[in-house]
């Protein structure tokens, strides 16, 4: 009986710390959740004379994938994005983050191009508006132009099936 209270405190602490260990301190939910997506007023990678036309995306659910040719996980992610977006009919747009357009275009030719279009964010200012912490990151944006989900790190088959696709289906 004497040890009941310390034991209870110990167990409570152990459970709390144990749960804390399960959480990924890097996986912060985006501050933009359910907020309007920031404006992407950037030229297109495919044609620098054209601007990324965000307004025309209203009414459809789309993914914004932040990528760069210097980012190794992005190289692995590109072919998967090609496959999944085609299979599940989810349009993917790119934000080419702090990259050189020639290298970016070269990578898309080699690894595959999943993007309907890519906006060039040469100085990373648009990325900052999205609060990105690293590359790659993927945002789900709904028909009203609001951010509904953010995934940190590369998209794998698992991430697509269990995280991105359910959100896309739910907001469609």
């Amino acid at each position, binding site marked *: 009986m004497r040890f009941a209270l310390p034991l209870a405190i110990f167990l409570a602490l152990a459970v709390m710390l144990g749960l804390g260990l399960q959480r990924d301190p890097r996986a912060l939910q985006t*501050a933009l959740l359910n907020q309007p997506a920031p404006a992407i007023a950037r030229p297109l990678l495919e044609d620098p004379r054209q601007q990324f036309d965000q307004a025309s995306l209203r009414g459809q659910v789309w993914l914004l994938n932040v990528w760069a040719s210097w980012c190794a996980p992005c190289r692995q992610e590109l072919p998967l994005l090609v496959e999944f977006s085609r299979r599940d009919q989810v349009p993917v747009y790119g934000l080419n983050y702090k990259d050189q357009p020639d290298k970016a275009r070269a990578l898309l030719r080699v690894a595959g191009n999943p993007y309907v279009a890519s906006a060039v964010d040469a100085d990373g200012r648009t990325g*900052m508006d999205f609060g990105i*912490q*690293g590359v790659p990151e993927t945002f789900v944006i709904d028909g009203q132009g609001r951010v509904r989900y953010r995934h940190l790190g590369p998209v794998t088959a698992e991430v697509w099936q269990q995280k991105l696709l359910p959100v896309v289906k739910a907001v469609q």
Partner: protein
Amino acid sequence: MMLMAWAALALPARADAGLEQREAELAAKLRCVVCQNQTVAESQAPIAKDMRQEIRAQLAQGRSDADVVAFFEQRYGSFVRYTPPWRPTTWLLWCGPFVAVFAGLALLRRTLKQRQTGAAPLTTAERERADDWLRQPDEESRP
């Protein structure tokens, strides 16, 4: 003439120094979102460099310190503030250690007090048994 030229040169430099100090202070208050245990001022990460540049640009535009913090908070969440703000959701965070210390002190005081007053006084029956044992110390060791 030379003095005037010198003054003209010195003035913007001084204004810059003020901005620079504010920039440094703000950078020390914001968290680098990549290397999370470092402030923007300490971090060498490219994103921290971008953040310092953004702080400087906004200060140069005449924005207040609070505006700059709000700018980053809107993008990265309140996590970006190296010192957590005082809000209902952070009350436990701020008060928890003090609550724990005071609870510990209260417990310590209670325990010490109990120890000082000692056990309850013996009843007459108990006293007689004790006296019995004391009179026959050799029998005590028997089972």
